[in-house]
Structures are given as structure tokens and as C-alpha cells.
């Protein structure tokens, strides 16, 4: 099997698993208890938290059950007061978009910032949309669909000028580009998830300017009162180790290697690519195949290649990715989207295998389509 769907979830990295193992097998202790076992768990947890904070550039780290919870906390946590105004980019992941829409149903004003044809948020439009007094602005770090890196420093600048908090969904970014919020002006939060980085599922974090947020779930006072529930020490250790592997000093060389493989694959497939004219995550390739994306993905799967469709067909109602439509790609082309995402363990042989499988699938689909004429 050739697994090229790292943007969905990455294979567990044994180095992460090794780091977590002692916390899953022998060590006991609730970090909130004052006894020896509890104190040791607390020390392990805080060490992991410090490492996460250091890698992402901010000492405030709220551990969550994943990226979705971190995004929800960042958005809904701003809504403790009365109705306000929130600006999000049209690229946002459902983990940001849906809670923002939930606020809109509660009387909030929701403004959606448009996207340029190259896949980046329209900064000029965003500057018009974000106003002083807004409760929040959300612009993701890198698109989960196209992999296009967003101009986060410029966005942070314009939000800081208006004193509007900025939330950056860095769930994809952390796998292949700098996800640190250090040095960004203003009040910035960022969300990450361990499983995109070779870490465990069910672990994520909201990092940064979390002061002023209200909890979404209520219970014990853990995580500074923002996220109740007994802390997951092993998960925190896993997230710290996974972040170190993807964001630490050794990450750069791997990103270069991955981008070269991706570029080689892109050149061999000779298909239109969404977001190909600007900087993308090194493993990301969004192909506009010209066929139906979901059909192509199923056929590739039958040849042992795991990739993702850019759209899902739910009972006769095809839903092309809104992020692609927002770039001005027409619905028919967007329905042909296939997302190929490479990871650290992807090899040249994998790229050869995908290219060969695609050639066979494209020939079959071409034959099926020609028969319509």
C-alpha cells in the first residue's frame, strides 16, 4: 500500500510512540493530586507543555482533545459576552467555520474574507473587513485542501493594528512549515493536532493569547480553567515529541526532500494543480484531474494507493470543496479534485507507484468518458 494521505492523518512515528510508551504502561498518577505519583505526572505534563510552548512560540498552552476542539475553544471561547462580530477566511476548515456559523445563528455578525485565485486569502479585502471592536479574526496557516501557505504575519499585523484577536488554525501547517507564533504582533492563538504529525489521535493544543477566553466545556479547573478533564500526560508527551520532529532543527532538511519528491510527482502527472503558483506545504499536491475525484480515488485505492478526494458525494448532492470554489475554480473542475499529501516516510518508489497507478486509472476513466460521445 502506498499511503499518500498525510493531510488526513499521518502514520504513527515510532519515535513518538517510544516517548509515550512509559506513560501508557507503567506510570500512574493524576497531575492534580499532590502525592508523589501525582507530582511526577505533573512534572512530566509541564515538561511536555513547556516543550510545546517553546516549539510554537508562546508559553500559554491549553491541551485539548485535538485540532477541532482547539479551534472550537478559540472561536466559541470569545463568545461569552453578548453578540459580536467575527471575520473568517473562506478557506477555513469546518472546525473553524462551523462554530463561527453557530455564532451567526446566535445573532453574531459573520463576515467571510474572499480568496485570491492563487489560493491565498485576499489581504486587501481582509483589511476592509476586519474592524476595530471585532471579537475575532480567523485565518488558517495553510489550507488543508491546497496546502497553500497563508500570509500569517501580514494578517497578524492588520489584526494587531485594529486590536482584534487572531486565531490561526495551524493543524496542517505544523506538518510541513513553521507554525510558531513567536514574534507575531497582537493577540494570536494557534491550534495544532498531534495525529497530523505522526503523533497520537485525540491530542491537540491551543497555544498563545488565551487570556480572555471562556471555557466551552465545564468541569474541574484543569488547563487554567479553560479545558476541564484529567490531563492526558502520555498524549502531551506525544504531541511534544511529534512537534519536535516536525518543527525542530532537523525538520528543514526533511521538508526540502519532501518538496522535491512532490515536485517530481507533479511534473510526471502533468495535471492542473490548484495553488501551484505560490508557496505550499512541501508534501501537498491538489490535482484537478478532470475526472470525478471520488471515482478516481476509489480506483487508485483498488490499486493500493491511498489519496483523498477533494469533494464528497452525499446522496446525490455533490459538494465540491468550498475552498476550491472560493479560488474561482468552477464546480465541474472542483469535483475532479484529488489531494495527494506526502510525508516524511514517502519514498521515490512511492512516487513511481502513484504515477504508474494514475496512468492506468486515467486511461480507464478516459475510456469510460469517451464512450459517452
Amino acid at each position, binding site marked *: 500500500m502506498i499511503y499518500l494521505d498525510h493531510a488526513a492523518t499521518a502514520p504513527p512515528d515510532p519515535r513518538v510512540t517510544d516517548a509515550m510508551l512509559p506513560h501508557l504502561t507503567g506510570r500512574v498518577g493524576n497531575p492534580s493530586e499532590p502525592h508523589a505519583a501525582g507530582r511526577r505526572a505533573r512534572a512530566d505534563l509541564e515538561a511536555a507543555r513547556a516543550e510545546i510552548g517553546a516549539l510554537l512560540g508562546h508559553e500559554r498552552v491549553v491541551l485539548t482533545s485535538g485540532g477541532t476542539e482547539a479551534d472550537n475553544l478559540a472561536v466559541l471561547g470569545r463568545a461569552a459576552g453578548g453578540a459580536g462580530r467575527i471575520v473568517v477566511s473562506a478557506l477555513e476548515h469546518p472546525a473553524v467555520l462551523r462554530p463561527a456559523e453557530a455564532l451567526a445563528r446566535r445573532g453574531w455578525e459573520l463576515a467571510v474574507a474572499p480568496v485570491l485565485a492563487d489560493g491565498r486569502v485576499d489581504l486587501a479585502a481582509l483589511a476592509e473587513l476586519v474592524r476595530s471592536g471585532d471579537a475575532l479574526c480567523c485565518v488558517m496557516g495553510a489550507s488543508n485542501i491546497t496546502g497553500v501557505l497563508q500570509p500569517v504575519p501580514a494578517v497578524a499585523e492588520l489584526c494587531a493594528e485594529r486590536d482584534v484577536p487572531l486565531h490561526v488554525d495551524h493543524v496542517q501547517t505544523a506538518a510541513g512549515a513553521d507554525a510558531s507564533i513567536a514574534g507575531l504582533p497582537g493577540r494570536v492563538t494557534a491550534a495544532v493536532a498531534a495525529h497530523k504529525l505522526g503523533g497520537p489521535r485525540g491530542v491537540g493544543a491551543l497555544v498563545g493569547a488565551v487570556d480572555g477566553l471562556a471555557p466551552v466545556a465545564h468541569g474541574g479547573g484543569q488547563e487554567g480553567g479553560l479545558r476541564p478533564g484529567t490531563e492526558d500526560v502520555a498524549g502531551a508527551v506525544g504531541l511534544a515529541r511529534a512537534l519536535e520532529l516536525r518543527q525542530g532543527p532537523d525538520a528543514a532538511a526533511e521538508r526540502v526532500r519532501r518538496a522535491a519528491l512532490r515536485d517530481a510527482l507533479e511534473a510526471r502527472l502533468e495535471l492542473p494543480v490548484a495553488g501551484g503558483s505560490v508557496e505550499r506545504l512541501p508534501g501537498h499536491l491538489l490535482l484537478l484531474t478532470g475526472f*470525478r475525484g*471520488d*471515482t478516481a*480515488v476509489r480506483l487508485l485505492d483498488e490499486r493500493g494507493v491511498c489519496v483523498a478526494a477533494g469533494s464528497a458525494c452525499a446522496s*446525490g*448532492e*455533490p459538494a465540491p470543496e468550498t475552498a476550491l470554489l472560493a479560488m474561482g475554480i468552477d464546480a465541474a473542475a472542483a469535483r475532479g479534485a484529488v489531494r495527494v499529501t506526502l510525508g516524511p516516510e514517502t519514498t521515490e518508489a512511492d512516487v513511481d507507484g502513484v504515477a504508474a497507478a494514475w496512468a492506468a486509472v486515467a486511461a480507464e476513466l478516459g475510456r*469510460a468518458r*469517451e464512450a*459517452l460521445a
Partner: protein
Amino acid sequence: MIDLSRAGALPGPDGDGRAGGGRCDDRLRVTLRITDGRIAAVRFGADACASATAAVGRLAALAEGRTLLDAARLGLRDVADLPSPDCALTAVDALHAALGDAVVRGAGAAPDVARVGVAMSGGVDSALVLAEAVDEGRAAVGLTLRLWIDPAAPAPERACCAPDSVRRARDLCHALGVPHLMLDLREPFRAAVVDPFVRGYAAGETPNPCATCNGTFRFDALDGVAMRLGCGEWRTGHYARLVARDGRVLVARGADPLKDQSAMLALVDPGILTRVRLPLGDRVKAAVVDDARGRGLAAADAPESQEVCFLGGGALAPFLARQGVELAAGPIVDEEGAVLGAHAGAVAYTPGQRRGLGVSRGTEPLHVLRVEPTTNTVVVGRLSRLGRRTVPLRDVVVHAPARRVEAAFRVRAEPIPGVLEPDGRGGAVVRLERDAFQAAPGQVCVLYDGDIVVAAGVVAG
């Protein structure tokens, strides 16, 4: 699994069908080769989602090697395990379009006197006829004609699917293990029924498409298909009876006076009727619906078909306009020529019509007396002015010689006794004992001897 091994198109196929093009823009095509009564090869074209593509690939594989009738049993159940059944349905439509096309092009089945064709509309009446044929242990085959397309309508074929009624008919058959075939006769239907209907209105007449449809198109087509498929007989759910007289089979009134459809069948060739059975002729509608409910037939509560079904429940005037009939505003006048009001297109009015005129003269009710297409004028007056006792007929068909007759000009109108005097040249005159008020030119006049249809003709002037 998506099986693309049969992707492609057979050159010069024996059956060729397409489906899709709805909201999701899935497009499928199935082509068939039939050799020695069996489907020797199936190929398909697809630009469609994974479910639709998987479904068409599987149906193509399942159809290969089967007889036409056996392949016509393939349906939604064979692809129900695939995700997104709506999409799989498009593949069933495509296969059945190809099977039906093969029959239209002349494919058939070996004769079997036990085989019975059932004309299926998707409604409750034909559903019960089918269920009873199955109960009798007959080898039934459901037949549905797809007759109408309105190319000028806002979205004629953009629906994801063949019309719901065709699918309902197919589902009813498949639920009973019965093969179903859909015959797409839209183009010939247009030429044989709709165009004359439109031309008749444009000429100021009041054509009766139901009698023409059944008499000159539908029964001929169904009979041809049933015979090609080797059926010993075929059945419909019409509320009319068939009686033998002097060695001929004649149409007679059904037992349900409110549903009697004998007039619709007045122009059907008696030669065809020897092969037809009308099991609902001695039943009443309410009992049929009860029976269908009791059997749990899905069609028990299906909507009744419209009086002129290709209008699709829509209004006459916009339909005529879509068919290219020029509708221009003009005067509504009385017989003295005094203008009483205005109309939006004279030819959309029918003699005898009272509603929707919007004119008055004193307190007396005004009716349309005649339509004058050359001057685009609607003439109105008292109903009594329409009354006449001598009505000329053209295109007269005599099923059984008769002189004393009862003449019916409208469904459910009280028939009027009279005498039929054929002129020997395809024309005739009916001399009535009472005034007829609804004998509009173009209407079909059905002539009964008691309950039996003995002749019919078109009101000539």
C-alpha cells in the same frame, strides 16, 4: 469495487441508453449487443461519481449472458449495498434505457402463451393488474411507455432521472420479481399525438388527445411490444370492459360510472383488442384502491394521472405557447360583433367554456360559442346558441354496424340518443333527439349501442 473492464461503447449496438445529467451532473451510457436472444456484450460510458460508476460497472457485468427479460429484472436491489443509492439509481436508469431501446429496435423474446404483458403507468390501477397476474402464476412483464418530452420547458431533462412514474412502475415490478421494460417513444408520440393536438388548437378546434393517444398510438405500440416479447396476451388497468359481438371484440363501458374510460378506447383497432384484457372493467375504483392497500402496493396512494397527461397538470395556454403556437391578445365579441372584453390568445379557448372569460352582458351567463383563429376572435353568447341536433363527423371508425346510437361528446356528459348516418366516404352525420351543447369541432364523438362502443368520429364542423 469499481469494475471498469466493460468501459467503452459497442459500435452499432442493439440497444443504447443514457441516464443522468441532473443536479450532480452524473452521465452514464449503456450499449448492448444481443445474439441469439441473449445479451452477448454490455459496454458502458461514464463520467460520474464513484457510486454511479460502481453501479453501472456491476449492472453491466450482471446483464451479460442474460436474456432480455431476465436482464429487465435487474434493478436497485442489485446495487443497494453501494453508498449513495440515488447515484446507483442513475445506473439502473441507464441499463433500463438500453434494454428498452433494444426492444424499440426490434429485440424480443421467444413466444410463451403463459407470458402476460402488463401496461404499467406507475399508478394504482396497473399495479393491481400486475399483482393479480402474478397471483395467477403468470409470467408477467411490466411495460411502460415514456411518451413525453417538452424540449421548450424550462428544464425538460434536467431532472436527475427518468420521471418518477417510470421508476415507480419499475419498482413495483421488481418488488414482485417481474421484469420491467421502459420504451422511450417520445419522438413518435410527439409526431402522432402532440403535434396534431397543437395544430388542432391552432386551427381553433378542440382536439381530444386521449382518444387519439390510445386509439392510434399507445395500444398499437404496447401491442407491438407485447407480441415481440412473446406474450400470449397483455393487460391494462383501464376502467372499460371488452365484449364479443358477431365475432369481434368491442369496448364497453366499465362498471364504475365515475371512472368509465370506454370513450378513451373508442378508436382502438378491434384486431388489437383480441389480445388485450381489461381486468378492472367490472370493478369500481374504490375497491381497487382498497385491494391495492390491502396488498401493501406502494402505488396505492400514487397521484392520479391528469386528463391530458402531457400537459403535466399545467395550463393549456403556456403549453401551446411553448409548442410554438402564437398567442396574441384580441377581442371577445358577442354574435352581433360588440366587443365585450379581451383575451390573451383566442386558440386557447374552447367552445362551451364559461370560466375565465371575464366578460359579461347583463346578468346572463356567457359561453364561448366559437373561436375564429383567422381574426383571433373569441365569440361568446348564450349557451342555447351552441345547441344543435345535426352534427357532422369525419374520420369515422365503425366497429359494429348500428343505426340507433347514443352520442357522447365529453367524458361523463349525458349521452344523447340519435341516428347515425354514414356517408360511405369516412364521414357521417349524427341526428340527435335533443340539443348537444358541447359538440365542438375537433372533439371525438363516441357512439354507443347500450354500453358498447360501436363507432367514433371527429366532430367536423
